[in-house]
């Protein structure tokens, strides 16, 4: 089920919230678990069984690890089994087809296989269960003996299918006891409406521009058109994913939870390193805590740090999808981060802020070409056109038309990518006067109504990160 669907907004969410707020505290987790299972089963009736099995297995594994903690060998053995099973499940459903296809490309024989559809959200909930298992082993969190609470942690519908990836340590207390107030509910509703508007009014609109450009064949595409397509996608993915994350954080608040923010105005970054501190923060944090630091991080010398960074970025790319262009995308960032860390980091600091900002944006946009391309070959060709190789011309009427008709949209998206709008908005509506509260309500109601008007007339528009 999509957050930005009429059935979610006008049936699932109101019914769930009503029941959730009516039942006494001890029953809230049961309501949340059942609602989350319905939410998932709506689109994945077969794979809900997989998720239930994953919950049961990780629940038992947590208990197994905890009881063996006094015997380090046995505890490690339990951890290895649990991690291996989780990775095998993820690997099978996400990478099995990719692996066989890659083997078939190099082997003289054709290996037969049947590729299964990717269970939605599997990458997100597997990383959550892994964080729990590893933290129980590390003694960082207490084992969860209440199956309902553990089930809520894995299935919680606000962040189940596209994150943020919530570490168990961040919600351990909240699963037992959380603060549910009307103020928090209101705050959550604001986050949700803002996220909905980001997705529906900006991401979907810029997505239309990108779709138009990607329909043009390379021989018919000008340099200008290729850049417009890339700019459109750059805005689309930010407003789509950060919009989803805002909705997830908002829904969490409405249910009494506090999730970490997943974005911090990433397009304001002045280096690639800074960009990754601001983009998909929960994924970066996960890889740092559970892969980079256990590998030795930067504590084992320059060469080992480089290897560790490349491993992490190879895995980050692969996490996004079973395809070589995602691997390339991950490696691209690995190399850029290594260059910044060991070669140009100090010199970059001395460059004027605007130049650093443009440098970051340019390389981020090039990165998105690998990300949106269906194949590596497509990505190279698209990049070629962006820089004049194989392009029809530099500027053509199509490019000018797309630029003129979407200039206002791009300007809104550009301003919306900065903290300015939020600051100004905050100053205007949160002044403490009653009239300003009314104004805030009117603005959010307007945003909500506009989004709904768009939703009822538009076609199916899933979130980009659903396929991961």
């Amino acid at each position, binding site marked *: 089920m999509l957050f930005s669907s009429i059935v979610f907004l006008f049936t699932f969410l109101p019914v769930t919230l009503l029941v959730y707020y009516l039942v006494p505290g001890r029953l809230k987790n049961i309501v949340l678990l059942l609602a989350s299972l319905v939410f998932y089963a709506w689109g994945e009736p*077969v794979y809900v069984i*997989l998720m239930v099995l994953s919950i*049961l297995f990780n629940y038992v594994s947590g208990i197994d690890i905890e009881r063996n903690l006094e015997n380090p060998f046995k505890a490690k053995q339990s951890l290895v089994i649990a991690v291996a099973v989780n990775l095998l499940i993820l690997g099978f459903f996400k990478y099995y087809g990719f692996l066989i296809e890659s083997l078939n490309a190099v082997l003289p024989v054709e290996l037969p296989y049947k590729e299964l559809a990717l269970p939605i959200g599997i990458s997100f909930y597997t990383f959550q269960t892994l964080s729990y298992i590893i933290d129980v082993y590390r003694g960082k969190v207490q084992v969860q003996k209440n199956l309902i609470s553990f089930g809520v942690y894995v299935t919680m519908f606000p962040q189940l299918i596209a994150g943020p990836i919530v570490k168990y340590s961040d919600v351990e207390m909240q699963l037992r006891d959380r603060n549910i107030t009307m103020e928090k509910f209101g705050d959550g509703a604001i986050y949700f409406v803002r996220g909905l508007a980001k997705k529906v009014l900006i991401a979907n609109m810029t997505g239309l521009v990108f779709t*138009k450009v990607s*329909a043009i*064949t390379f021989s018919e595409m000008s340099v200008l058109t290729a850049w417009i397509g890339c700019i459109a996608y750059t805005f689309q993915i930010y407003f789509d994913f950060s919009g989803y994350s805002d909705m997830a954080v908002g829904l969490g608040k409405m249910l009494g939870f506090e999730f970490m923010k997943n974005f911090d105005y990433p397009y304001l970054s002045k280096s690639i390193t800074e960009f990754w501190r601001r983009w998909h923060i929960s994924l970066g944090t996960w890889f740092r805590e559970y892969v980079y630091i256990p590998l030795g991080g930067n504590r084992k010398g320059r060469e080992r740090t480089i290897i560790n960074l490349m491993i992490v970025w190879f895995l980050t790319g692969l996490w996004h999808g079973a395809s070589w262009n995602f691997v390339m995308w991950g490696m691209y960032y690995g190399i850029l981060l290594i260059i910044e860390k060991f070669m140009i980091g100090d010199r970059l600091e001395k460059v004027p802020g605007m130049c650093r900002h443009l440098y970051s944006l340019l390389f981020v946009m090039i990165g998105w070409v690998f990300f949106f391309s269906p194949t590596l070959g497509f990505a190279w060709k698209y990049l070629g056109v962006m820089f004049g190789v194989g392009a029809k011309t530099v500027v053509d009427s199509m490019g000018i038309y797309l630029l003129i008709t979407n200039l206002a949209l791009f300007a809104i998206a550009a301003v919306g990518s900065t903290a300015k709008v939020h600051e100004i908005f905050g100053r205007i509506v949160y002044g403490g006067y009653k009239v300003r509260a009314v104004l805030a309500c009117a603005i959010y109601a307007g945003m909500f109504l506009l989004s709904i008007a768009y939703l009822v007339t538009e076609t199916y528009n899933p979130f980009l990160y659903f396929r991961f």
Partner: protein
Amino acid sequence: MMRKIHSRERKNGLDAIFITQMILIGILVLYVAVLLFRKGESDTPFAEMEQAVEGVLDNSDMKEADHKMFRRNYRLNANDYDGVMLWFREGTMEVDEILVVKLKSKEQSDTVVEAIEARKKSRKESFQGYGASQTKLIEDSIIDVRGNYILFVIKEDAEKIDQVFQKAL
């Protein structure tokens, strides 16, 4: 208390947690095997499938094609199948098309998929070079083979129709 029970169980060679883990792994393997080897045949009557897919087309200006048109476009005979449903949008620049076929036997699957691929190719060739949005729609079309049912959609909301199709199976 819990620890005492565990240690007693382990001494007796019975480890409930370990056994539970192994049972769950066994169920997981079995579940994956079922997903991989299930025949996937649907017993949904064709009329029900038709109703479900047509339900999404409400208020759209698509028209239902007859068997002659199916034969002309796909070079297949509708009577060879348990059910055929073809919807299209009229107009020289329109590409929207939805086809649902219920097979009589799984052996027919390859023939139908080949016919669909041929249709897709010829539609693409018709628009390539001047109809950018039409070409894109054709490229993004969905061919979904689910056991004895096959769906082919060229439409902007192809994924939505595919979801309805899958739900109706």
